[in-house]
């Protein structure tokens, strides 16, 4: 089974599904939904088989495939996955069916074609898988840019208030980053010996000054994508305007392309530049953690609030990456997965609340737990996971990031810890103002607020809750896959973990 071309099939399959779904008759939207859901389940099954086939202790890159594309420029369809990519692919495969299920009725209010909405989701899945599976810089760039198009239409055509503004802002921000990256990609191609193959480029000998400029080109694109402070302003707008399902994918997966790109491209290709820029990147991460958390506290719009929390979390991931220790790096990658699960859940649950109330304003809620106790409970759980309560998966990743950072850079770790306190503040206040306290009398007049979670919605949240709890107690299967890849990345950067102090070793021996 290990010779099966998993990555190319996984990339192409959703695209074929999208075509099928788009061609289904508009009059029968239910059929389109079912086909789309079934298709995404197929992709999930295939991904699970791929996960099982992956040998955690084996080569760094597995499932490598390579086909010629544009020989004149040395461009090839090269796919390969390391542990980091594998985890992200798995996250996509899990989230997409749940998002489709959660978005069952989202497209119906929009006066637009329902099948097209689900076709766009599948196209998005295809491009997201492609971007994580690519091992050719050109191919990566292609997916990185094309990914914008389905998301643009998801936000712009099916979104809520101010969707046009948000869609254009999202597209332009990402395009700006992408074009800087294009300049860097071309530069890399010129100095790297006219090849785009990652394996060859890693060994290319690049002059220090050039490497720093190229690093900056890539980093800018990824920092906008992630987004890191101060390139984050598009995310709250896009997150608020996007339909809840698309927003879950936007924040849960799409933004991870930024941090993934830093790990896969910025660090190994330009190790010296990465070390040189690390202090600045750490500073950006720290500012992001504190600043976004403060802004989140002050939000009155639920989706904007969740968007800001996620900017704060990306600060943590950034700190974890640029601390250059295996622990922090593993924590960062684990955070990418856990944040996808936790924030994805939070976005979906918030979406369910908003769909019922018909408003995203926190002030329009109040005591909703008395009407929809189950939904309120899930929101509380998602909030706790998001603030990294011990026992939920994000705790482990946040802890690893702080631990790994503390060993090399104590002030950064200490400041970052403040972010945890602020996280408790914005999550608990949000939960309190929406579901706890005295019942807002206006709520009882809204029909939707009398319906608690139905079976479909339970099916959406249950797997996510189960995964968050499971990975909170037993993250080993995932860390086993991540660890070798992160170690290899840190070796590329030329950083080794600080040796434990002698005293602790003796204590351990005793």
């Amino acid at each position, binding site marked *: 089974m290990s010779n099966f071309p998993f990555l190319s099939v996984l990339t192409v399959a959703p695209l074929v599904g999208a075509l099928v779904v788009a061609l289904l008759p508009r009059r029968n939207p239910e059929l389109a939904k079912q086909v789309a859901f079934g298709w995404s389940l197929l992709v999930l099954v295939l991904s699970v088989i791929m996960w099982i086939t992956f040998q955690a202790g084996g080569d760094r890159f597995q499932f490598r495939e390579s086909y010629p594309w544009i020989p*004149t420029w040395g461009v090839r369809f090269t796919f390969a996955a390391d542990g980091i990519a594998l985890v992200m692919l798995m996250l996509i495969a899990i989230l997409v069916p749940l998002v489709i299920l959660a978005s069952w009725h989202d497209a119906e209010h929009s006066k637009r074609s329902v099948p097209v909405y689900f076709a766009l989701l599948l196209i998005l899945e295809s491009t997201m898988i492609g971007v994580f599976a690519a091992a050719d810089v050109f191919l990566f760039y292609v997916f990185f840019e*094309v990914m914008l198009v389905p998301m643009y239409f998801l936000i712009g055509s099916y979104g809520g208030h101010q969707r046009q503004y948000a869609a254009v802002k999202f597209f332009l921000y990402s395009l700006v980053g992408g074009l800087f990256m294009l*300049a860097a990609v071309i530069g890399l191609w010129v100095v790297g010996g006219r090849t785009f193959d990652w394996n060859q480029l890693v060994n290319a000998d690049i002059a220090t000054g050039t490497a720093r400029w190229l690093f900056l080109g890539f980093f800018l694109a990824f920092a906008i994508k992630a987004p890191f402070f101060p390139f984050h302003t598009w995310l709250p707008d896009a997150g608020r305007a996007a339909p809840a399902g698309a927003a879950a994918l936007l924040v849960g997966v799409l933004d991870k392309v930024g941090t993934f790109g830093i790990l896969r491209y910025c660090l190994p290709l330009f190790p010296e530049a990465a070390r040189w820029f690390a202090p600045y990147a750490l500073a950006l991460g720290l500012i992001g953690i504190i600043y976004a958390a403060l802004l989140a506290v002050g939000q009155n719009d639920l989706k904007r609030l969740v968007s800001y929390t996620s900017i704060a979390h990306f600060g943590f991931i950034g700190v974890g990456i640029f601390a250059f220790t295996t622990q922090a790096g593993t924590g960062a990658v684990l955070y990418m997965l856990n944040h996808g699960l936790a924030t994805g859940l939070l976005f979906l649950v918030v979406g369910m609340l908003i769909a019922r109330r018909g408003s995203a304003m926190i002030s329009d809620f109040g005591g909703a737990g008395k009407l929809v106790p189950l939904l309120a409970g899930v929101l509380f759980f998602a909030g706790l996971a998001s603030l990294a309560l011990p026992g939920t998966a994000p705790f482990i990743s946040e802890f690893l990031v702080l631990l790994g950072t503390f060993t090399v850079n104590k002030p950064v770790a200490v400041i970052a810890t403040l972010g945890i306190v602020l996280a408790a503040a914005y999550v608990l206040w949000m939960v309190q103002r929406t579901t706890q306290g005295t019942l807002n009398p206006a709520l009882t007049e809204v029909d939707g607020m009398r319906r608690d979670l139905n079976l479909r919605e339970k099916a959406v949240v249950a797997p996510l809750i189960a995964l968050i709890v499971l990975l909170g107690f037993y993250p080993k299967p995932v860390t086993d896959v991540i660890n070798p890849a992160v170690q290899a990345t840190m070796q590329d950067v030329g950083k080794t973990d600080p040796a434990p102090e002698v005293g602790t070793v003796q204590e351990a021996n005793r």
Partner: protein
Amino acid sequence: MTELKLPSIDYAALSPILIMLGAALVGVLIEAFVPRRHRHLVQLLFALAAVLGALTMVVLNSDDRLLTAAGAIAIDGPTLFLQGAILILAAMALLLIGERSVERGGYFVAQAAVTAESVDDRRQAEGANGATEVYPLTTFAIGGMLIFVAANDLLTMFIALEVFSLPLYLLCALARRRRLLSQEAAMKYFLLGAYSSAFFLFGVALVYGFTAGVPGRSAGVDFATIHAAVGTSPASSVLLFAGIALLSIGLLFKAAAAPFHVWTPDVYQGAPTPVTGFMAACTKVAAFGALLRVFHVAFAGAAWDFTPVLGAVAVLTMLVGAVLAVTQTDIKRLLAYSSIANAGYLLVGVLAPSKDGLSGTMFYLAAYGFSVLAAFAVVTLVRDADGEATHLSRWAGLGRRSPFFAAVFTFILLAFAGIPLTSGFTSKFAVFAPALDAGQAWLVIAGVLTSMVLAFPYLRVVVMMWLSEPGESTPTVAVPGGLTAAALMIGVAATLILGVAPAPLLDLASGAAEFVR
């Protein structure tokens, strides 16, 4: 008295040019002798047959690398590639020009001599069949362009410039609707074009003066002589630089590069849309073909001197095109500014003095031509009772009214914006990579920055079409006749194929990327 020595002429190598010019002459005769009601069909088929015949000869000649007609014409890789590109794009343009089912009687005025806005004019606008003189005019223009990219001395180049420019001035004036705008455009184009031709001719004279006095060579304006004279001529280099500058003005005018671009938006807007498409695609190929040959062959030795200046022109062109495109409210003017910006990107390729730079520029020219013709084909279709609805606000909600054409136009706009999997991306890569390789990083950075600016107007149109609600005045999209549909499909298919699988054309361009001297 010495005997006149006749130059040997390789008629086979010149056959594409001869076919087009001959066809133009026959076209004039058709105009005189074929009954009026058959003329349209006969002229269209004849012009298309001539283009296809010329194209066949280009393909058959594809291995030629020679100078002929006493060194006045060079038939080499770039010539053949660009002639092929011009002919294919011209065939698409002819399909658009020949369309008569979208607008009754075609896009052209029946009798240009009738006073605009008069009673007679209104009557003929109602549906009198358009003038068929457009076909011989177009054929003449194509013939001139074929010579222009092959010209190997400055005088031949000047004559070719006039041969293809004069018919274009006339074609611009022949719009059926909004005739005053059309005539104004033609007037503007003619006057400015005449000035720029004068600059070009003056430049030729200065360069001739510069080549005089080189030991062992007589003065001349063929590229071999100029090439030899650069660096060895005892004449003042002021002559050379002034000559290059004046020649460049003439060529950059045709290429629509800033600051010689001011005619572009007005002419693109006023001219009948198929002619606009023809100019945006074919004139661009011809102008850049000539620029490439002049700078890579004749003045290659002076590259150190002209590169910074031309680089500044390129940056200015990109900036002007991108920034002014943002403020446009008319789709044809928007495409005109986008075409100016694209001239800037092409100049980046021209300034990469390598085989890759040359092949990348040629690839860009072909790819852009297909996309821009497809774009103007869509523009001809979006119309209301008064003809084409070119104001952007009228395009609001077009995605609801006619999702297919809106989708096609969106795809073309994404190509212009340089999104991967379209030819716009591969062609940008094709010119930026050699420029960076040649150490012109500043041009690439400018190109990237202006691409960002330029993405905004394109995106605004996409937003208009898809995300806005259709208004009362949203026009419908006419059902395209077979000709327009064919041209549109060729353009869109080429935009997609050159984006997904550019390798064959890239190989072709790279195999052709060597000038004979």
